[in-house]
């Protein structure tokens, strides 16, 4: 990207960083659910027993 001013640069890079953080946090929720899915099953089995 070409930037005319320092403000342009900061606006673009900070904006991209915030978008990345938002996507990362949303992805983490999915990742955590994937990671712990079987744990919940295990506890559910125990409750049924």
């Amino acid at each position, binding site marked *: 990207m070409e930037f005319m001013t320092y403000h342009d640069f900061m606006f673009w890079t900070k904006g991209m960083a915030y978008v990345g953080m938002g996507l990362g946090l949303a992805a983490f929720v999915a990742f955590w659910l994937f990671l712990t899915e*079987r744990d919940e099953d295990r506890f559910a089995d125990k409750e049924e027993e």
Partner: protein
Amino acid sequence: MSHHTTPDKKFWTPANILTAIILAIGLVLTVKRFTMGIGSVTNLSDDNPWGIWIGFDLLCGVALAAGGYTTSAAVYLFGMKKYHSAVRPAITTAFLGYAFVVFALLYDLGRYYRLPYPLTIYPGPTSFLFEVGLCVALYLTVLAIEFSPAVWETLRWKKLRHLAHSLTLLLTIFGVILSTLHQSSLGGLYLIAPSKLHPLWYSPYLALFFFISSIPAGLSMVIFEGGLSHKFLHHKMDETHIEEAPGVTLGFAKAAAVVLFGYFNLKWIGVAIDDNWHYLATGWGAWFLVEVIGFVLVPCLMYAVAAREKNQKLAFWASIVTVAGIVLNRLNISLVAFNWQLPTEFRYIPSWEEIMITVFIVTLEITVLRFCLSKLPILHEHPEFKGAH
């Protein structure tokens, strides 16, 4: 108890013969380095004053010794007592890791008797290097005290053992603080070189990257060594260690998956914050993607599947990929992507003697570790101190 039955083995096995040859060559090169100077054994120059001894022995050594603070923090600060059997092996590895980091540093320094100078004669408290030196010196002391109960138990020095054991919580807190400081400061050392380090690896978050990545490095080393101990030193392990091993592997795998996921995201924030996207389309970008996808995202997913499916073998393989990834990252920052703009003839390639001395130091460390694991109550509890932890 199973660890009392030592199998009858002859001493001169192929592994021991290879070890003896490496140690003999290393000793000859050590004499050469300390009598004929650093130039006689290295390809270091004013352009590349830090070589493989810093890039591998120090940066990788410190990162891979992070199992000590991660494990002791999990057990003593977060109360995860189910991982207690992993503490002593982790502390032993960390203690030896740091001890050999300092040992390797002496080869770079040359004048080893001046090691305390930065803390006494010429202190530079505004320098990252000063902070690293101070923290490593203090943390090595902390680790020595944390490791010492295994020695006192073997010698049956109960009072010293009790004294060291009573300091556990204090030392753990101190160890976590010191590790946070110097693990990050090692990355901070490279903040001074934005024009030398390739933009994909240079980041204002370097210190954060080094600290965050040290956590899965330490966890992976605990899993890796646990797997090896289970295979080769099974006869030294007592029932508690054998029973708790799967829980340690899978629990640490889950933790490593979470931290690697965060680290993977942070690496992209690092690219975004400096607008380095265009470098991804170059050869350097391809190498960066190999590191970040192949050695961060892939082991992250391997760990996640291993923890989810309760697959210890997959967790063991993930630990190997993670350790390789940490080594790759540290070597990229200190050697490969450092001075990336210099013509090839001015780039640093380590001499065979530098590599051989590194191999010598790693071999020596593994030999001492093997000795400690077989002679000290690390993979089993001492009969006179059962349940006294």
